[in-house]
């Protein structure tokens, strides 16, 4: 068991190394002079030179790589070309709104999606099942920002229940935070709910046909207990896996949702960086989000043995 955990943690190293190599080469292998691309058409020679220097583009490739990785390992993601602040500082200042929104979204999604999937599987081939599946296909088919604008139109502009945009940290009181966070969270949750509900339904359908479910029902266990304790626990592993892989969707969604709702998080930071061609910030965000994705999936992989005692390594 301990051996497995160590091996699984060590397996993160090659993946993150290749991600780092990839991100490194992305800038260097792009056609044309990367400094000129970043600086845009109106750049002065001085600015080009400054960009080249700050990205370390003047050295030979292998030396650039060693220097770059060396700085990375010390937690240095470079310096913004626009504000001249270290990228890590910029991300640090904007991290909390995103974490708050993301955590709330995950909790909300699981609370909505898992019961939805369970009920769809339980009432297989009825209108409930069709409704859940239709919602699920619909959730995949509408762009995140369109969902966001539809919510703003309905709840903020027409009904005037909630503020249109903005963000308040939870430290200023829970209600102002929730008031502004609920629409972004629902927006982000739509696609995540679609994904998790679909997987829960599929996984539950498989389990509900098993002998032990029939036995449990035959000996008079309450249907609710059969579904949520006997069946759901055995169906949990694929659901956990999809929550992990769906995390990538959540990250992409955060970038879009934060700019729809004007939330000062790292997603908004990324969009501003795109518009300003601030490449070090984009690069830092790619590295950070990849790392978070790999880390979340590592935790989920390791948690399998706790959810399902049959899994032994």
């Amino acid at each position, binding site marked *: 068991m301990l051996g497995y955990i160590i091996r699984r943690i060590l397996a993160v190293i*090659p*993946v*993150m190394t*290749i*991600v780092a190599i*990839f*991100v490194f080469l*992305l*800038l260097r292998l*792009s*056609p044309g002079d*990367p400094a000129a*691309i*970043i600086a845009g058409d109106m750049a002065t020679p001085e600015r080009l030179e400054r960009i080249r220097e700050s990205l370390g583009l003047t050295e030979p490739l292998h030396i650039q790589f060693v220097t770059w990785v060396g700085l990375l390992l010390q937690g240095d993601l470079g310096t913004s070309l626009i504000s001249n602040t270290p990228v890590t500082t910029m991300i640090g200042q904007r991290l909390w709104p995103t974490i708050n929104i993301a955590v709330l979204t995950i909790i909300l999604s699981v609370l909505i999606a898992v019961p939805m999937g369970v009920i769809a599987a339980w009432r*297989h081939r009825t209108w409930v099942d069709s409704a859940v599946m239709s919602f699920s*296909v*619909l959730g*995949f*088919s*509408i*762009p*995140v*920002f*369109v969902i966001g*604008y539809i919510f*703003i*139109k309905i709840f903020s*502009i027409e009904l005037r229940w909630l503020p*249109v945009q903005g963000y308040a940290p939870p430290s200023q009181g829970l209600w102002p935070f929730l008031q502004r966070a609920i629409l972004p969270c629902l927006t982000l949750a739509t696609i995540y709910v679609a994904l998790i509900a679909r997987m829960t339904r*599929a996984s539950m*359908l*498989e389990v509900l046909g098993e002998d032990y479910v029939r036995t449990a029902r035959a000996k008079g266990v309450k249907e609710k207990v059969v579904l949520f304790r006997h069946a759901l626990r055995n169906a949990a592993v694929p659901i956990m896996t999809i929550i992990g892989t769906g995390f*990538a969707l959540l*990250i*992409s969604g955060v*970038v*879009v949702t934060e*700019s729809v709702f004007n939330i000062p998080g790292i997603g908004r930071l*990324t*969009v501003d960086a*795109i*518009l300003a*061609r601030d*490449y070090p910030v*984009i*690069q830092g*965000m*790619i590295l950070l*989000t*990849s790392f978070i*994705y*790999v880390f979340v999936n590592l935790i989920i992989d390791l948690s399998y043995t706790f959810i399902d005692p049959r899994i032994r390594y």
Partner: protein
Amino acid sequence: MAAAPQPMSAMQTVLGIFSLPRNLRVGIGPMIAAGVLFAIVLVTACAYLIVPHDPLAMNALQRLKGPSAEHWIGTDAYGRDLFSRVLVGGQVSLLIGIGAAIISVFIGLLIGLVAGFFRWADAIIMRIMDSLMAIPAILLAIALVALNGPSIWSVIFAITIPEIPRVVRLVRAVVLSAREEPYVEAAIAVGSSMPKILWGHLMPNTLAPLIVQGTYICASAILTEAILSFLGAGVSTEIPTWGNIMAEGRNYFQLMPSLIFWPGLMLSLCILSINLLGDTARDMLDPRLKKREV
């Protein structure tokens, strides 16, 4: 889905060109989806024959006007006809979707065949693919467009790269199981050339799942194009695409929600139809999945 036999409709005849077994009947949902998709593709493909106005012609006097006899669903912030723009915008969006699907399926197929067949290549290729999958698709695409410029090809390329690992995984899994089949072992035993085994014997096994995967990639590529444009990292704003029209509509959302609503509706209908057809194709091409109702 459909239990009772239905008379052959035009749509079933159209679907018939894929030479599906006759006992696999198509339900009403997929038929509607096919109809909607066909209509959208037809209308956007012939957009320049239909449109009442030049989609690029600006008119300062007609800015942000509501629906009228002249402009059926209104005008945008530059006084351009929204109806014409939505139709023409579909061309580039669909082109990007189809282009990204074909290219990522083709490249993924080649890499997946190699990874599935040659053990020495498998470990290296799959490590690289795992790493590529760890990078959030949108962020990778943003970086690629930022570095390669806002051309249509650069956007297709940017959407294709993050999709390739998913295709590779699929192809590799199919090849790994097909490789153990007697006919493949026989082909190796009689000394068939390696390209012949890969392309002639193993590749056909991957076609059915790849068609399904291709439809999903097409749908997700159209979505990604819209998101990239929305974030300001898409096709150059001079070219109307569904994403670009919505991105421009952002600033006027409170005033004119239809700038986001109409292109959003077309795009969502289009993606919904493609996804539904993908699900149908999956159920038809893999009866085992249908039985398990996954």
